[in-house]
């Protein structure tokens, strides 16, 4: 508390405030609330995990079961985010460029994975892809099992990550100047050439951002995955689930060690996205 209010005071030090009241009050409140609810609790993870010593930390995170879960979490998230990039591009392109019936409704539905509680998504996807489900029954004769396998995890992570890609791409596509494409066409470029040489270069920072956002969300995802995953150690057990398992055994050192690995990676992705967006913004001079 003391540290934070003095930090707020330091921020207030410069005298270019203007006349609007409430700066000290609102910034002070913001800092206190942020510290109490977010910063101090998160720091608990790092402090707890370091209490066991480096050797113990290393031992925990390199245990085969932990490694397998991290590999699965990152692998499945990577696959899901990649699927979302491909289909997210198609979906946002269609939503921005074409008109068709119920477009507004469909556009609104894209946010469903944001709004639908993850547990509901989890049981719904499980019911769909279970061997006797609407889709599972079709896939089973083809030899494809989705529910209770790593493939199911990918499906769930694709579901929750999809809006990130679409909603990142849409505004960029909307701002894209169509005349540039027409100019390319008038200069003799085929539609494919126009896409690859004119549209894609303008789009890829947004694509990468959408990918990173979907990826970051997928790594930490829990609710929608655990129902469909099967949760078998070494095979279909994601890292967040392993944290829960360790917490239930009161193995706080183990749980915090995995958490630290995930937090560090998530924060790295977050700062990467920030850097990418700033870079893209300065390059394209958009405001």
């Amino acid at each position, binding site marked *: 508390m003391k540290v934070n209010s003095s930090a707020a005071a330091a921020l207030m030090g410069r*005298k*270019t405030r*203007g*006349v609007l009241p409430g700066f000290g009050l609102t910034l002070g409140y913001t800092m206190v609330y942020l510290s109490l609810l977010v910063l101090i609790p998160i720091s608990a993870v790092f402090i707890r995990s370091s209490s066991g010593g480096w050797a113990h930390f290393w031992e925990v995170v390199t245990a085969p079961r932990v490694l397998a879960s991290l590999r699965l979490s990152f692998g499945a998230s990577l696959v899901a985010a990649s699927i979302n990039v491909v289909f997210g591009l198609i979906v946002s392109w269609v939503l921005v460029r074409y008109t068709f019936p119920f477009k507004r409704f469909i556009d609104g539905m894209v946010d469903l994975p944001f709004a639908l509680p993850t547990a509901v998504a989890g049981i719904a996807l499980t019911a769909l892809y279970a061997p006797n489900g609407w889709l599972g029954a079709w896939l089973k004769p083809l030899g494809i099992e989705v529910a209770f396998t790593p493939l199911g995890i990918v499906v769930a992570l694709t579901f929750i990550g999809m809006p990130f890609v679409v909603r990142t791409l849409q505004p960029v596509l909307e701002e894209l100047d169509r005349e540039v494409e027409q100019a390319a066409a008038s200069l003799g470029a085929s539609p494919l050439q126009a896409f690859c040489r004119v549209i894609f270069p303008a789009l890829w920072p947004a694509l990468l951002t959408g990918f990173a956002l979907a990826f970051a969300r997928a790594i930490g995802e829990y609710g929608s995955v655990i129902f469909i995953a099967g949760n078998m150690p070494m095979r279909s057990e994601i890292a967040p689930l392993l944290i829960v398992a360790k917490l239930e055994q009161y193995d706080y050192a183990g749980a915090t060690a995995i958490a630290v690995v995930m937090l560090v990676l998530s924060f790295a992705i977050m700062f990467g996205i920030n850097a990418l967006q700033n870079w893209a913004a300065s390059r394209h001079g958009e405001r």
Partner: protein
Amino acid sequence: MSIALRGVTKQFGQYAAVENIDLDVPTGALMALLGRSGSGKTTLLRIIGGLETPDQGQVLFDGQDATLWPIGDRKVGFVFQQYALFRHMTVFENVAFGLKVKRRGERPSAPAIRTKVQELLALVQLSWAHDRYPAQLSGGQRQRVALARAMAIDPKVLLLDEPFGALDSQVRHELRRWLRRLHDELHFTSIIVTHDQQEAIEVADTVVLLNQGKIEQVGIPDEIYDLPRSAFVHRFLGQVNELPVLLRDGRAYIGPIDISAAAEVQTGSARNIALIRPHEIEVGQASAGWPATVLAVRVIGPIVRLDLCADDRPIHEPLEAEISRERFEAERFTIGQRVGMRFRRWQVYPAAA
């Protein structure tokens, strides 16, 4: 109320927005602060209004130090370029706002507020619009509402920050004249910020020209137009032709024209330039003055502009001359015609390094 600034300085980070400004605004004056964006004119206005606090210096209201008075106690009416009307309130509610937020003891009764607002709306000729929302009004109407709102608190000073900047030229012109009339009727002290020299000269009785946070010149409009104290002021207040002043054998020339007789010519090694306004160039027969060729003729209502290429001058830097329509009708200049130029007036300044 009279306003005085004494040594007012304001920095934003490393950047000095205004530097050591001294200025007196007498009671009842309508003063224009004129300058480009970044000249410090808006900062100065905001300091007077209490929206910014100066780093150094004093703001005096009727001789009292008002530097640190809170904005609400200053009795200033503020009008912004983008109107800053409260979008969720009707015109009536906007104008009544300043009365309704008064402390209980000072607040007028509801009927008194209504009467006052109706008077003000009549003054700005918007009585019919009292239950409209700002979005339903045109730009000029909105700005008049903003003015009525500012006047509702019986301000001692009216501060207008580019009030007509967002309007088209026809409406601007009408509102300027209207503002001038209003000011003459009501006699409060007003300060208007503008980047438009036309507007400043048309509306104000004193013009303050600011450049890079400093005052370049203060004066009545005629004076500042006719007797600019620097090349900057001269250029800022209208079109100018720039010609080098050549020194030969102790005499000074603009082209072939000997200007040595004019007292203000500084001889010496410094390079000088002469600034000549288009209407100060007289165009006549080729036999007299500086020979030139007519490059272009543009008739603009009552005046006619000629582009002239003086002999010995590069063709891509033509001079611009302005003559009356009557004179043009008499002389009938045509493109390619040879003419002679004479300068009715000019002003010589040291050329900037």
